C-alpha cells in the first residue's frame, strides 16, 4: 500500500503554495490538489484553505484522543457499549465513557486511529472472532480462479473505481480491491456483487490499510450496520430507505418537499447514489469518512440524517429552483464542496430538531408497499403485451 507519509508531505507542499496570503479576488481560480486520502480535488483557493483548517482540526482531535487514551487507558472506548445490559449494570464510568465517546465520534476519529476504532466499535472485530483466524485467507484461496457473473462484473469495474487515484488505480490496488469484493461475493451469494460496493470497499481499503480488515468492515456493514437487502437482488432495502427518507423530508423540510414535488423532482434521483455508495462518490473523502465514523457507531439512520441535512442546508436556495436541473446543480455543488465535515455534521445533529420518527418502525411500515410495488412491476413486465 502507498505510504501515507509520502502522501501527506505531497499535500503539504501543494497546499503551502495556496496559503491565505493570496488575494481574495483569486478565490475563483480553480486549482487541483490531493486531499488527505490521495484523491484529486478540484476547487478554488477558499476550498484549499478550508481543507487546511480541516487538517488542523484533525490534528487537534488527535490530541484529544491521545489524551483520553493516556487518562482512561488504551481501548477505553471498548467499555462503553450503551446497551440495555449496561444500563442495568449501572456501571457509571462506562456510561460516562459512552456519552463522551458519542460526542467524540461526532467530532471525528483521527485518521490514524480509524482502523482500530472502526474495527472494534462497528462489531467487525467480534464478527471476525467467531470464525477461525484463517477464514479470509482460506476464502481467497478457495475462490481463486473461479469465474462467476459477479467476478466478471467486478473485473469490469476495477479500473472504473476512483480512476486516477494514486494507489487504488494501480495493479496492486486493483488486485486488493478485487480480492475483497470477490471474497465477499462468495460469502454472501444473495448480494454477490452490487455496483456501488466497489466504491465502498475501495474507501475501506484506504482507511483500514489491510485487506482482511477491509473485508470484515464490508461484512459488518452489509450484515449488521445497514438495512437488510440494500444491495441484494432488486435493491428492495434501498427502495425502503428512499421512502423513509421522503417521509422524513416532508416532516423536516415541508416547504422544500412541496416545492420539489411541484417540480416533479423525486429526491431519490439524488439520494439513491448517496445511500448505495454511503456518500463516498459525492462528498470529499474526509467528510465521507466523518459520516462513516458516526455510521459505524450509531447505525444506518445516520445516512438519513446526512441526506436531510444536505437538503436543510440549501433550503432557501432550493426554493428558488425552477427546474429539475437547477435542483441537481444546487445539491451537487453543495456536496462536492463540503470540505469542512463539521458544516454538514452540525446541521445533521444540531439543526434538524428532535427526530420524533421511529425509523425502524417506519421501515417496517414501508416494506410491504415496496414489495408490492416491485412485484407488480415484475408482473406487468412479464405479462404479454
Amino acid at each position, binding site marked *: 500500500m502507498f505510504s501515507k507519509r509520502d502522501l501527506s508531505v505531497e499535500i503539504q507542499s501543494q497546499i503551502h503554495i495556496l496559503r491565505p496570503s493570496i488575494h481574495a479576488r483569486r478565490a475563483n481560480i480553480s486549482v487541483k490538489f490531493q486531499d488527505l486520502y490521495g484523491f484529486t480535488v478540484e476547487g478554488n483557493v477558499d476550498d484549499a484553505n478550508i481543507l487546511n483548517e480541516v487538517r488542523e482540526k484533525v490534528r487537534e482531535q488527535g490530541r484529544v484522543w491521545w489524551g483520553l487514551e493516556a487518562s482512561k487507558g488504551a481501548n477505553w472506548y471498548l467499555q462503553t457499549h450503551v446497551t440495555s445490559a449496561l444500563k442495568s449494570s449501572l456501571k457509571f464510568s462506562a456510561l460516562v465513557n459512552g456519552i463522551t465517546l458519542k460526542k467524540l465520534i461526532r467530532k471525528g476519529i483521527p485518521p490514524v486511529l480509524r482502523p482500530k476504532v472502526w474495527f472494534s466499535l462497528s462489531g467487525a472485530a467480534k464478527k471476525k472472532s467467531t470464525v477461525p483466524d484463517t477464514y479470509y485467507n482460506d476464502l481467497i484461496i478457495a475462490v481463486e480462479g473461479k469465474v462467476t457473473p459477479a467476478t466478471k462484473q467486478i473485473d469490469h469495474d476495477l479500473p472504473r473505481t476512483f480512476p486516477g487515484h494514486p494507489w487504488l488505480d494501480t495493479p496492486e490496488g486493483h488486485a486488493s480491491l478485487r480480492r475483497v469484493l470477490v471474497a465477499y461475493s462468495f460469502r454472501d451469494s444473495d448480494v454477490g456483487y452490487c*455496483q456501488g460496493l466497489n466504491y465502498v470497499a475501495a474507501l475501506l481499503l484506504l482507511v483500514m490499510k489491510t485487506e482482511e480488515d477491509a473485508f470484515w468492515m464490508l461484512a459488518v456493514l452489509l450484515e449488521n450496520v445497514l438495512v437488510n437487502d440494500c444491495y441484494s437482488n432488486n435493491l428492495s432495502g434501498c427502495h425502503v430507505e428512499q421512502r423513509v427518507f421522503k417521509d422524513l423530508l416532508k416532516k423536516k423540510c415541508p416547504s422544500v418537499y412541496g416545492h420539489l414535488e411541484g417540480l416533479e423532482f423525486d429526491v*431519490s*434521483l439524488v439520494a*439513491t447514489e448517496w445511500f448505495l455508495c454511503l456518500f463516498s462518490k459525492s462528498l470529499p473523502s474526509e467528510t465521507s469518512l466523518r459520516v462513516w465514523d458516526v455510521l459505524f457507531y450509531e447505525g444506518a439512520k445516520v445516512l438519513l440524517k446526512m441526506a436531510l441535512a444536505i437538503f436543510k442546508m440549501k433550503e432557501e436556495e432550493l426554493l428558488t429552483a425552477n427546474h429539475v*436541473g437547477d435542483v441537481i446543480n444546487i445539491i451537487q455543488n453543495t456536496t462536492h464542496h463540503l470540505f469542512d465535515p463539521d458544516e454538514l455534521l452540525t446541521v445533521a445533529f444540531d439543526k434538524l430538531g428532535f427526530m420524533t420518527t421511529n425509523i425502524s418502525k417506519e421501515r417496517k411500515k414501508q416494506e410491504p408497499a415496496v414489495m408490492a410495488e416491485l412485484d407488480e*412491476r415484475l408482473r*406487468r413486465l412479464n405479462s404479454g403485451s
Partner: protein
Amino acid sequence: MATTGHNNLNAKLVLLGDMGAGKSSLVLRFVKGQFLEFQESTIGAAFFSQTLAVNDATVKFEIWDTAGQERYHSLAPMYYRGAAAAIIVFDITSADSFTRAKKWVQELQKQGNPNMVMALAGNKADLEDKRKVTAEEARAYADENGLFFMETSAKTAANVNDIFHEIAKRLPRAQPTQNPAGMVLVDRPAEGTRAASCCS
C-alpha cells in the same frame, strides 16, 4: 420575441443499457467532448443537460444517464417516467449487451411514454475486430420495433452528436405553429406524426 419561446423545447432523455456498454461515455462525449478510457461506474444515475440547435429551434436535453447493472433495473422507471426520448445502448462487441438492449426496448414499449423517440446505439464501433453484433442485425431489429439505429463510438466521437441531433429532429413539436387564437388544445398533437414512423 414570442417565437423564441415557441421554438425552445425541453426534452427529458434517458440512456439505458447493459453495464459497460458506454452510456456515460456517450454522454460525456456529447456534453463535454471528452473521452475517458475508464469512466467511473454510474450508481443510480447521473444528470446532464445540453442544448442543441435544430433548424429554427433549440432543444434543451435533460439527460439521465443510468446505472447498467441488472439489479438497478428496479430504479429505472424513476428515470424514464415522462421521458421524451431514450437511447438504448449496447456494445457491438457483446452479444449479451444486445440481448439486454432488446429487453429495454420491450420495457419502454410497455411502460414508457407512447410518444417516446427511441434510438438504438451500437456503441464501441471503433472495435471492429471484436465485433459480435452485426449492423444488419441491429438495424433489422430497430426497423421492426420503430427505433432508429446508429453505430456510435464515444472514443472516436463517430455519430455521437448525430444521434442526439437526430433525436432532436424527431421530437414531436409541442406547439403547432398555426394556432393564432392561442386556444389551448388537448395535448395530442404528436399522434399523427408518430403513427407513420413507429407502427409497422
